[in-house]
């Protein structure tokens, strides 16, 4: 067990360095969402409630997490195609150790994203500062597992050329099916059902409710947590299964 923890730690540190040293990923993970947060707030917040900081900041946090799907997928796809992983398959590391290390390596990035966007949001609109922000920060780490699970799964299945297209579906899904950019009124019932079944709206609502101090209830927290947890667990388990299959000799 000690050896396993040590291997997970070693792999995690390596993955963090690989992600952090890619300037393009840093632009998409931090700079672009930050620019959108500032631009959208000052352009639209008086016209649409969606762009008030109490909704916009959690929305941006989740939107930036969707980009992690792309970069996590790219990292794994590149590891696979450059023989790096093939070589590591000969080592004693197990499939779950690889998957855990990929997921863990993104959590510090998620934490920095959330702190940055909530902090900037709070500086622009101090009303969002409060105990809710701490809970929102914690829950944003939890919601990121869905996007990371998807990224790891895509990375196991796709090559580095196709990963961009596949991950953009998730980014589009987060934009269109989370309700972060437009009001929910007038949305057709079928689409609304789809939004409630998929993780995007549930994850966004969860972090928004936490930030805005919504009273604790099953609808506000319990249900979104269950939906997001189910997707995260499903994606991560499936990733381990697919990764283990790829590790096996053919």
């Amino acid at each position, binding site marked *: 067990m000690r*050896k396993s923890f040590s291997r997970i730690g070693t792999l995690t540190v390596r993955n963090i360095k*690989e992600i952090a*040293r*890619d300037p393009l990923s840093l632009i998409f993970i931090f700079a672009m969402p930050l620019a959108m947060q500032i631009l959208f707030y000052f352009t639209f917040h008086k016209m649409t409630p969606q762009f008030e900081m109490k909704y916009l900041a959690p929305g941006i946090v989740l939107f930036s997490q969707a980009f992690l799907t792309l970069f996590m997928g790219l990292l794994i796809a590149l590891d696979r195609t*450059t*023989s790096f992983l093939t*070589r*590591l398959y000969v080592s004693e590391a197990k499939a779950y150790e690889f998957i855990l290390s990929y997921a863990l390596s993104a959590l510090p990035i998620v934490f920095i994203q959330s702190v940055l966007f909530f902090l900037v949001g709070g500086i622009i609109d101090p009303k969002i500062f409060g105990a809710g922000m701490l809970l929102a920060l914690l829950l944003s780490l939890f919601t990121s597992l869905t996007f990371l699970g998807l990224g790891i799964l895509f990375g196991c299945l796709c090559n580095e050329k196709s990963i961009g297209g596949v991950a953009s579906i998730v980014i589009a899904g987060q934009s269109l099916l989370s309700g972060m950019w437009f009001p929910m009124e007038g949305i057709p019932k079928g689409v609304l059902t789809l939004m409630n079944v998929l993780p995007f709206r549930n994850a966004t609502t969860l972090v928004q409710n936490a930030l805005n101090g919504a009273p604790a209830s099953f609808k506000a927290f319990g249900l979104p947590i269950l939906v997001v947890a189910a997707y995260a667990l499903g994606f991560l388990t499936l990733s381990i299964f697919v990764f283990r299959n790829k590790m096996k*000799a*053919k």
Partner: protein
Amino acid sequence: MTAIKIDKLTKKYKDLTAVDSLSLEIVEGELFSLLGVNGAGKTTTIKMLSGLVIPSSGDAEILGHSILREPDKIKGLIDLSMQETAVARKLTVRENVRFYAALSGQSKEEIEKSERYVFDVFGLGEVSGKKASELSGGWQRKLSIALALITKPKILFLDEPTLGLDVLARRELWAAIKNLKGKMTIILTTHYMEEAEALSDRIGIMKSGKLVFTGTKEELFEASGEKSVEDAFVRLVTEGGYHA
């Protein structure tokens, strides 16, 4: 003691038989070179022995463990340097060494020792702070091979290790491999006859998936009637086979 015992190992891809009923024994501490033209089955053999490819039939034992029944027990006993460069792209040379050494379970002191070994033996110290992706192809190759040597496996597979290296780098690697002789069992595939001649205890020659010769350099000369490994190799792959 036998390190590797291969019994009728075969790999078929649809109509192509990449490795055809290969049987061979390699003793502990031996350096065995596998020669053959492109497509002879050398890499497929190494991939089967290292658990990356499942044989179609036959089996092999690595230090007493079957590659079919106990693949997990083999991990940790072996390491592999592939034909392709396999390094962490955005880690520096030093970080790559530390990463591989730590992953193989080395202590802090052992990791530092591995670092010194790589810097001294391969001259990688002068580029230790550079990211692997910023190195030239030759330096990347050197790093990739060096990483396989630091994990101190019981059995080391080197698949065309000097491919793409200049003469000086090749000689450096030869010296490093010679230094490892007797400390671990090494199976080396190569296209360079002088490499096999300089390093091997025994040589195996593969042709169309079959092992057509196994024996020492002297036995190879005797079997072929030639006086160099290259001439003997050409004669054997264009004519028949012989097992010492």
